[in-house]
């Protein structure tokens, strides 16, 4: 592995900044976090991704100190955080609603935390101005929060939470209130600022694109458990379960039975009268075991003529979703199974190859898909 790649989680000597050790959080009978253990490293941009109610916000609120774990420990730089109240933690949070103080100007909002620390006046002014420059808000310092736009408010909230130079910054759905274009711009700004300040960021989001864009590692959560923690590319290309495969991006999931193994290839029988699917398993499967075969639509080719790929099926085009840059074809096989195939529209629409009811071939290579147990 080259030296300049940032991957402290692969280094056995690296000291994590945050450690969750068998943390469980219950609200009455409801288990929000279920025996969760995870390490997060310094300078990481760590994303907690999951549907609403999966426990990601609870994890963040426990880091900030607004909730305490029912069982287990949370360590920050090796120190147990349970007895430390929120105002004594070297952790700051950017709230989903931004939570800007409406009665204070932008400048005073950013200075708020510094004032509480009793920072000398000139030092504080310098720090606030630095934050204003970082977030390009110099012109709005004297405005009140309701006198600026949504995107600017978001930047004030970020500046305020970074002003105290926390060890760890928590971001709760920071871009949820922005429209799509602004959100994409801001994602890059966030990454830029994270790199400049060297702060560890933990972001909570339900938007998988956002998590994939900004994060160094993504933790996919479901029902209070972490299903998979990995880099965005690993999460996308080698999901460890059908849940992750299905949650991140679009996927074709086919259920079948493990057949004969030949070399590193495994055949999967999945439907009467259809040829077996050939895949490359990462783990071993017993013969006859149930297998879920997951393949991303963009790895499925769609052609008029019989392709040379080892896995190919005949079907007809049922639906076309035209997205401008891409088109997704829903191809129905004779047994009713629908396979989604995605192609880049690098030609103008008038010369596009396929239309409804066309007889086509869908095919893929024997390494394109992932074989999953559950």
């Amino acid at each position, binding site marked *: 592995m080259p030296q300049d790649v940032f991957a402290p989680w692969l280094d056995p000597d690296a000291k994590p900044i945050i450690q969750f050790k068998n943390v469980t959080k219950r609200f009455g009978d409801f288990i929000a976090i279920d025996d969760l253990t995870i390490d997060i490293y310094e300078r990481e941009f760590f994303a907690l991704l999951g549907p609403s109610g999966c426990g990601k916000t609870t994890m963040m609120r426990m880091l*900030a*100190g*607004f909730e305490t774990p029912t069982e287990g420990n949370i360590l920050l730089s090796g120190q147990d955080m349970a007895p430390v*109240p*929120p*105002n004594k933690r070297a*952790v*700051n*949070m950017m*709230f*989903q*609603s931004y*939570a800007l*103080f*409406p*009665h204070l100007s932008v400048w005073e909002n950013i200075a*708020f*935390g510094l004032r*509480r*620390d009793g920072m000398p006046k000139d030092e504080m002014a310098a720090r606030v101005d630095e934050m204003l420059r970082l977030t390009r808000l110099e012109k709005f310092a004297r405005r*009140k929060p*309701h*006198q*600026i*736009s*949504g*995107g*600017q408010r978001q930047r004030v909230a970020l500046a*305020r*939470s970074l002003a*105290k130079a926390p060890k760890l910054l928590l971001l709760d759905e920071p871009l949820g209130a922005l429209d799509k274009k602004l959100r994409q711009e801001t994602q890059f700004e966030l990454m830029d600022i994270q790199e400049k300040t060297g702060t560890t960021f933990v972001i909570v989001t339900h938007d998988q694109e956002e998590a994939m864009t900004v994060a160094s590692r993504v933790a996919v959560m479901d029902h209070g458990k972490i299903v998979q923690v990995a880099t965005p590319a690993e999460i996308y290309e080698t999901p460890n379960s059908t849940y992750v495969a299905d949650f991140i991006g679009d996927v074709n999931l086919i259920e079948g039975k493990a057949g004969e193994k030949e070399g590193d290839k495994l055949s999967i029988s999945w439907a009467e009268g259809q040829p077996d699917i050939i895949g490359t398993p990462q783990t071993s499967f017993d013969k006859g075991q149930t297998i879920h075969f997951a393949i991303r639509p963009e790895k499925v080719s769609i052609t008029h003529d019989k392709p040379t790929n080892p896995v190919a099926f005949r079907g007809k085009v049922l639906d076309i979703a035209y997205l401008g840059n891409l088109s997704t074809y829903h191809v129905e096989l004779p047994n009713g199974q629908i396979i989604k195939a995605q192609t880049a529209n690098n030609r103008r629409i008038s010369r596009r190859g396929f239309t409804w009811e066309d007889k086509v071939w869908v095919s893929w290579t024997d390494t394109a898909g992932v074989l999953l147990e559950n």
Partner: protein
Amino acid sequence: MRRFSWFNATSLTLGFAFLYLPMIILIIYSFNASKLVTVWAGFSTKWYGELLRNEAFLDAAWVTIKVAVISSSIATVLGTMAAIVMVRSGRFLGRTLFSGMIYAPLVMPEVITGLSLLLLFIGIGLDRGVLTIVLAHTTFSMCYVSVVVSSRLVSFDQSLEEAALDLGCSPLQAFHLVTLPIIAPAVISGWLLAFTLSLDDLVIASFTSGPSATTLPMKIWSSVRLGVSPEINALSTIMIGIVTIGVITASLVSKSNVARQQREERAAERLSAG
């Protein structure tokens, strides 16, 4: 624009006449030169002058203002605290009962409130006077304050306080640096409401006052029993004035804040869109 309709105009006129005609007559007659209340003898402000020379009325006015200021201040503190508990504490055993108990005095007949307070003061051997009126007024105006403040707190974003804690405030600092300044308009209008209620009250004050303390409404009531004098009209006019100003200020304080904020928000949106 809606079309003019005779039915609407008549209803409006009758309605307002019903509400305000008695007061208008009272105000007009407070400027009557004649000593006889029912006979108009030209415009004069002499009864206002008479009033200023009347020791008994001035004493009563002083007692009333003292009672109103003290009781509304205590009621504001207690009512705000009650509102915070009710809005913040979420669900706990007996919450409905507790909130019902805060609001019950709003609908309790004043005679009963007054009588029960009187029995209490006699029971614990408290001499009736300014103190007992203050206590009584605090009791009933506190619930009005808590209604006004809690309606503001419901829309208060709790994460503001969490943000303050997160940035290093103790819970107490978070309250007085963030929560209080934001809910201040509601607290002020709660205070003004409590103040005007205390100023108005006759029934409860009559029950809980002693020979040493007479409030203005009590004084007016007792002198009217000996016949309405133009002086009373003048005094009532002044009271109507004070109460009106109080109520209008209370509603303006909360409304203008909201209106200004909305105006500026729209301006900000236009700015960012353009």
